[in-house]
């Protein structure tokens, strides 16, 4: 995956209006998109993404339909697309079939929130075979030896968990971010480091770039914005977040 940095990755939950939201996010300045494939019991997610996932499932969303939505997004925007889901969903679909169909729908990378490097052997082979980058996460609680393993195994980018806890907007980011960036960079010098969890404001994005990260992922806060104001509000919100990227480039 060619990820333009500094990166601003926006999360969209799979739904019928996801393509429209994806276009709005990219118009606002998103450089890549995550597409959430909903799971009934998302342990890594806080209330906002849980609610969005439940709404999506209640509306009849399935992994197969979510990959069709991904293809619709791919036809409309020209940024890397990254499905994000849970191990149970991929396992039920079959790792090989899932990666094949996701690649065909335009996915360039894949995040599976509850499958750490130790459990990802089969999934990694399946992803590699079809040219999908399997992204791993490192957290402020990760020990140095785990950071090395996860960072070295991660393809496309390394996902830095910016807050200890589940997903969801927060006021402040974990104070250990700069240290986490440093350790991860040492383990994977050529892989972009993108931070997510808890990020909701331009100053968060600026602080992450300041700490040495190559970009930010915004999920729950964007879903909240969509819930309140639809695609127009999302575009305006992303535009505001993107100012933090331009400040850095200048």
């Amino acid at each position, binding site marked *: 995956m060619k990820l333009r940095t500094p990166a601003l990755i926006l999360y969209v939950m799979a739904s019928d209006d996801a393509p429209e939201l994806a276009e709005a996010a990219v118009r606002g300045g998103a450089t890549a998109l995550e597409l959430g494939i909903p*799971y009934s019991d998302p*342990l890594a997610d*806080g209330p906002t993404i849980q609610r969005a996932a439940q709404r999506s499932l209640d509306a009849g969303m399935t992994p197969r339909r979510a990959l069709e939505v991904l293809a619709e997004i791919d036809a409309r925007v020209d940024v890397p697309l990254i499905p994000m889901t*849970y191990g*149970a969903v991929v396992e039920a*679909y079959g790792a090989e079939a899932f990666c094949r169909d996701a690649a065909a729908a335009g996915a360039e990378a894949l995040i599976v929130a*509850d499958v750490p490097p*130790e459990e990802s052997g089969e999934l990694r082979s399946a992803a590699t075979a079809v040219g999908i980058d399997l992204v791993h996460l490192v957290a402020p609680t990760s020990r140095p030896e*785990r950071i090395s393993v996860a960072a070295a195994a991660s393809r496309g980018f390394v996902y830095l968990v910016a807050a200890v806890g589940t997903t969801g907007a927060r006021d402040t980011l974990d104070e250990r971010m700069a240290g986490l960036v440093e350790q991860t960079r040492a383990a994977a010098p050529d892989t972009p480091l993108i931070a997510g969890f808890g990020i909701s404001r331009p100053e968060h994005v600026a602080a992450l770039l300041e700490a040495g990260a190559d970009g930010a992922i915004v999920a729950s806060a964007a879903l909240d914005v969509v819930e309140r104001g639809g695609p127009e509000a999302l575009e305006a919100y992303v535009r505001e977040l993107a100012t933090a990227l331009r400040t850095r480039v200048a």
Partner: protein
Amino acid sequence: MRPAVTHRPDARGRFGAFGGRFVPETVMAALDELEAAVEEAFADPTFAAEMEALHRDYVGRQTPLYLAERLTEDVGGAQIWLKREDLAHTGAHKINNAVGQALLARRLGKRRIVAETGAGQHGVATATVCARFGLEAVVYMGEEDMRRQRPNVVRMGLLGATLMPVTAGAGTLKDAMNEAIRDWIASVETTHYLIGSAAGPHPYPYLVRELQAVIGHEARAQMLERTGRLPDAVVACVGGGSNAIGLFHPFRDDDVRLVGVEAGGDGAALHAASIGGGRVSVLHGSRSYVLADEHGQVEETHSISAGLDYPGVGPEHAHLHETGRAEYVPESDDDALRAFHRLCLLEGIIPALESSHAIARAERVARELGPDGVVLVGLSGRGDKDVGSVIEREGHPLRAVEPNPEPEREVVQ
């Protein structure tokens, strides 16, 4: 050909194809830390001595092995022996695990404990050991379970635990476990997750089994002492499966049938039999049998028993099933209730609705074996907590002889 049975998780924490660690990265370090603490504690004679003293003086071990004579006579088959975990402190086997994990939390330097509970027995056991060791207890419980297991809600409050009601999903054990794990992900640096079942990510299934194996070790020795022989079959109920794995494990190398009884619910579509009706998937951190749809989404379950009303099962049970070492069978709500009443009326023991599933199956096994056989049943808990559920379903057992309530009501006012 069936895979060979293993009793020790491999380097990845798997029993055969089941188990492992399917959790967000944030808690991986805590699992490594716990695994190391478990190894250290299990090799430490001080830990063993502390456990033994607590078992004897606090939990009330060993628990009796009891020949249910009138039930045996009434069924007309094999002898039915009950391992009386209902007589352990707090009224169920859950205390065995809670005591051990509280000691581990202390070794880890963690003063805050989170737990999930379904029937409330694990919540009560957690609240109990936290009071005993001066730890903060936070217990997540589904709202439906709070309604149907009211006495245990009150007990947790008396013991000083903070109860966190969970409204998500059906408001039962699965939902409580989701929230307990989410709390732990956010608080992992100061908090120990005191899981109540032989489920979850490695090393929990192994840890909980080892802490519950005291049930089987005692029962096996008691059986040999009392009858001079081993039972033909060992029967226990299985939700996540902690009492069953604790009872089964010491009999693993014996020529003894191991029978796990899952909740059959209403006998049709509504049930909680993960092995009988589920598929291999991932739930709450491990790969096992899960009641999930073709897309991997977890399905709603039903059982009259809150403790068995869970869409997953511990990974070692999945392995024992796959290898054929243990058999897993369902008993319905109705059959469990019939067994509940029979134990009340024939033995003067009010069993938990969970354990009643095991009694129901033990009666069938006893009939199959005939008078020369011996069946050992795990009576995992007492049923005081369940009287509300029984009344709700069947009406008040004493309503025909209730006195005129009018004068008493005036006194109360």
